């Protein structure tokens, strides 16, 4: 470090707090692969959308009323009487959809390019926890406007806990804080939505990034950039995170905001998929909507839940509880992917034909399940959902077998 700087404020600060050291470690000197593709932008965009949600959320919280009597009207108050309240609300509601959209792509990237493989298991695990927390956060937040769909969708989800044998009914009452879904549930969901889950998410984001910086970012080739370094110790195929990666993210963030604000300003309801029509009607516990549909981002998992129309009677497992197990399993199985993949290469580019087919089947099932989840059930749709559920799980369950035995291509030495 130069002499002049040693006397500066930074040097004073550095002796007391490792600011420069950490800035260099995580920003200015942190090496990232030079060549990555489109799929590698979603992490940065997720950070952006997380900030959007936190900031708009704080503003909404200033005007929102977390009571059964006042919640619905307070949303309309935000939409009408609060200056730019509508903007905050639409950014928050569109942000929720964007968050999931980006999250699914970010995770699919991980699956495609083996971003979970040794030594990145923890990065992937923290990410899966983040998906789980995001799902919880989205669910809790969706209840807050206290519209018809808030109320009845929450009823469906909470009743799943009631389906657990022995402890179920008591557990459901404990979560609800009442014998039925009521204002007591609303106010605790508010507390969880604005404090508990976001705090956990921030902590996990920090862990996710620290773990990533420990093991290094991946690339679509699955090449280890650490192998070849120049004389300064910088990997030959790498570049410092700042300014190169930060700057390359900015145009992408710009494009993202163009699309994001196009929706916020011109289609905030997202064709009824981002803001569902029945939710413009206040919750009425005497009137069930004709068709209870989750928001699109839960639809794939909701489809899996509905696809299980059979139980295991001799074990005392009802179809509802089995559905709940498989539904939970569909998320839980993602956590163990690092230990299911036995391949000697990371990227799908160098994996064999079975891995490629498996990924296509997995993605196609996920999309089909998503589509079916937003539609009312009928026999044909249930059958398709059952087949898709099977093809959602099979690529993951069979992964240890096909990744071990399939023929892989040789990974190049350099990017």
């Amino acid at each position, binding site marked *: 470090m130069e002499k002049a700087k040693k006397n500066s404020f930074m040097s004073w600060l550095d002796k007391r707090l490792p600011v420069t050291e950490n800035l260099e470690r995580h920003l200015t000197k942190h090496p990232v692969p*030079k060549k990555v*593709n*489109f799929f590698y932008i979603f992490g940065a965009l997720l950070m952006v959308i997380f900030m959007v949600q936190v900031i708009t959320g704080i503003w909404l919280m200033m005007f929102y009323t977390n009571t059964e009597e006042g919640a619905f*009207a307070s949303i*309309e108050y935000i*939409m*009408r*009487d609060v200056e730019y309240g*509508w*903007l905050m609300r*639409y950014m928050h509601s569109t942000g929720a959809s964007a968050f999931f959209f980006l999250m699914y792509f970010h995770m699919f990237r991980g699956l495609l390019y083996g971003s979970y493989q040794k030594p990145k298991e923890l990065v992937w695990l923290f990410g899966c926890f983040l998906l789980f927390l995001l799902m919880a956060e989205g669910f809790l937040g969706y209840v807050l406007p206290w519209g018809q769909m808030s109320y009845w969708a929450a009823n469906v989800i909470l009743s799943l806990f009631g389906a657990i044998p022995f402890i179920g009914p008591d557990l459901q009452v404990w979560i609800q804080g009442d014998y039925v879904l009521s204002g007591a549930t609303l106010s605790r969901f508010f507390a969880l939505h604005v404090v508990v889950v976001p705090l956990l998410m921030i902590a996990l984001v920090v862990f996710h990034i620290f773990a990533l910086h420990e093991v290094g970012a991946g690339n679509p080739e699955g090449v280890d950039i650490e192998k070849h370094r120049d004389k300064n110790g910088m990997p030959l195929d790498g*570049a410092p995170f700042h*300014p*190169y990666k930060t*700057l*390359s993210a*900015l*145009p992408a*963030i*710009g*494009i993202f*905001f*163009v*699309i994001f*604000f*196009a929706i*916020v*300003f*011109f289609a*905030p*309801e*997202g*064709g*009824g*998929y981002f803001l569902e*029509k*029945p939710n*413009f*009607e206040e919750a009425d516990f005497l009137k069930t909507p004709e068709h209870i549909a989750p928001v699109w981002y839960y639809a794939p998992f909701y489809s899996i839940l509905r696809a299980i129309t059979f139980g295991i009677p001799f074990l005392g497992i009802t179809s509802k509880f089995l559905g709940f197990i498989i539904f939970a399993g569909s998320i839980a199985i993602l956590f163990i992917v690092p230990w299911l993949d036995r391949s000697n290469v990371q990227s799908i580019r160098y994996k064999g034909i079975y891995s490629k087919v498996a990924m296509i089947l997995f993605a196609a099932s996920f999309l089909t399940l998503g*589509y079916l989840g*937003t539609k009312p059930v009928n026999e044909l749709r249930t059958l398709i959902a059952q087949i898709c559920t099977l093809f959602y799980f099979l690529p993951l369950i069979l992964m240890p077998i096909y990744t071990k035995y399939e023929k892989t291509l040789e990974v190049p030495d350099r990017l």
Partner: protein
Amino acid sequence: MIKVKALLIFLFFVALPVWSAAETECGTLEKCDSFESNVHDRNSLQRGLGLYKNYCSSCHTLRYLRWNRLERDLDIPENILVEDLINNPQVKTSDFITFGLPEVSAIGAPDLTLRTRVRGEEWIYTYLRTFYEDSEQITGSNNLVYPGTAMLHVLGGLQGRQVLDQNGNLEKVGDGTMTTEEYDAAIGDLVTFLAYASEPARITREKNGIFVILFFIAFTAVMWLLNREYTKDIK
């Protein structure tokens, strides 16, 4: 890679409307009549308000909309607002448009503030035009979009008499004070007003959104150029 991007953009902009368009059931009708409100047409909004005030307001409230919001957005002079529209010294211009009706009026008429967002504009546009005479109903009329509706055909005098023919299609058998075209236009005004009432911010939203988007397009362009300069170093 371009293919993947194109597919994503396609999915986002094309697939969503296609999916939502797939659900077009409209009561006994296969499809609602198409209608798109233009909340920037102030005259249409004012005419819609007039219809609402004269025909709907004795049963239906607008309990999330304030009188003075109308003054601002619909450009209504204060004296007309106070004397002709509110016409009640106890009501302030900052009050909600409830006419002192209870939350759920005695005959169960729903509040209309958010109705167009619950049902959709096209549903309401079609509903208000598909009443027909039906002596089996207590109200003497029935509806194609919402069979068995409890609502009277209060606009019957304007529309004229309609009955169902043998094929279940509407047939006009008596003239109202408006021609069919005039009536359709009037209902269009009313639905436009209700669409406005359901989201007054839509006027600013649709007007100013383009500037935000243009800003981010410019931002993207500048950042793209800046990034291009920097990446020259590491190539």
